[in-house]
């Protein structure tokens, strides 16, 4: 058994998490840039973070045979100050050529403000300019439905093809619209605020496996870096075929991510 966790924040996890993930069959992770749990005080803080994502984490993952890729951006929670956000965005292009950078992410909205939307649009423009794929964070809880629609509208106003965009953290009330508009959809297996393995299996039963993946979004909060293999077990317990399980936890992420030629599982 092998799987890809296409959204996990390994900078917040310990090295033995890599070990346990490898033991559970993880062959690759992709790590979007995100909010560290506190607001950084300078653009230099992001410069150091991008170095950590592109230089240090791939080496730490490689110790356990896991490929580590990343997405860069300023996250929506720290994007509410446009001046600061633009300063951070200005340092991103220098990192885009690095061999493990797959695109721009996780961009999106947090509280659905005009300031956040302005910076989202500017990062979409950045992805357009440098022909980058996009990984999208959708807001939490009551803000998700409205924010998901605002985000999809902003991307649809650009020249980026929806097939090169993954809209993450979908739930039952957003997944249909995301797929209908041609985007890829990510189900995040996260306690209390997102999907459980059981509900992810339910969504697959209702919407099929096309353009759908699952991830743990493991981070500094209560979360589970083994959520994807646990969801595989849940699907198997319910009687889903090995082919279906493999599609949503390996084949689909591989298919989407391989649109970037830098994504390789073999040397």
């Amino acid at each position: 058994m092998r799987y890809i966790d296409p959204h996990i924040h390994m900078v917040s996890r310990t090295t033995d998490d890599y070990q346990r993930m490898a033991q559970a069959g993880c062959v690759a992770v992709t790590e979007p840039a995100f909010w560290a749990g506190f607001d950084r005080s300078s653009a230099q803080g992001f410069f150091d973070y991008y170095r950590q994502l592109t230089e240090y984490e791939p080496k730490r993952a490689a110790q356990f045979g896991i490929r580590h890729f990343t997405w860069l951006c300023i996250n929506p929670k720290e994007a509410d100050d446009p001046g600061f956000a633009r300063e951070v965005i200005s340092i991103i292009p220098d990192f885009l050529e690095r061999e493990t950078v797959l695109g721009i992410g996780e961009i999106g909205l947090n509280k659905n403000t005009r300031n956040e939307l302005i910076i989202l649009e500017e990062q979409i423009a950045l992805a357009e300019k440098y022909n980058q794929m996009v990984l999208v964070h959708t807001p939490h809880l009551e803000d998700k439905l409205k924010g998901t629609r605002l985000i999809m509208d902003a991307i649809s106003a650009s020249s980026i093809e929806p097939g090169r965009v993954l809209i993450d953290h979908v739930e039952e009330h957003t997944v249909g619209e995301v797929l209908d508009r041609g985007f890829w959809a990510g189900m995040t297996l996260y306690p209390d605020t997102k999907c459980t393995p059981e509900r992810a299996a339910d969504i697959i039963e209702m919407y099929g496996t096309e353009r759908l993946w699952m991830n743990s979004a493991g981070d500094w909060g209560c979360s589970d870096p083994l959520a994807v293999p646990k969801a595989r077990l849940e699907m198997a317990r319910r009687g889903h075929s090995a082919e279906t399980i493999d599609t949503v936890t390996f084949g689909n992420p591989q298919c989407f991510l391989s649109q970037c030629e830098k994504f390789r599982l073999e040397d």
Partner: protein
Amino acid sequence: MSDPIFSCPQNREEVINTYFMEHRAKLIDLAAYLDRLDRARPVGDDADFRDTAFRDAIAILTDGQSQRARRILDLLSDHSTAMPQSADGMKGALGAPHRVSTEGGAA
């Protein structure tokens, strides 16, 4: 979208065999939470918007219609069209839309 009818690999007896005990426990947790609220002193005269939404959501569970998870998530979503300029001073997400009044629509 694929046909949601009978798309689960298990039959109903198998679903119940697999999930009943887990959801029996969750059901009792839910009942105990409502009992706990009954034993707690109220704060002010107005119902908490989260509690109101929660009880509206419970009604969906027994209305006999399908797509309950989607409809509950929809009920617990902000359907307003207003966009504040900044998040400065705003609270984090609370799990239910905070309506200003029962007649005036979403804030």
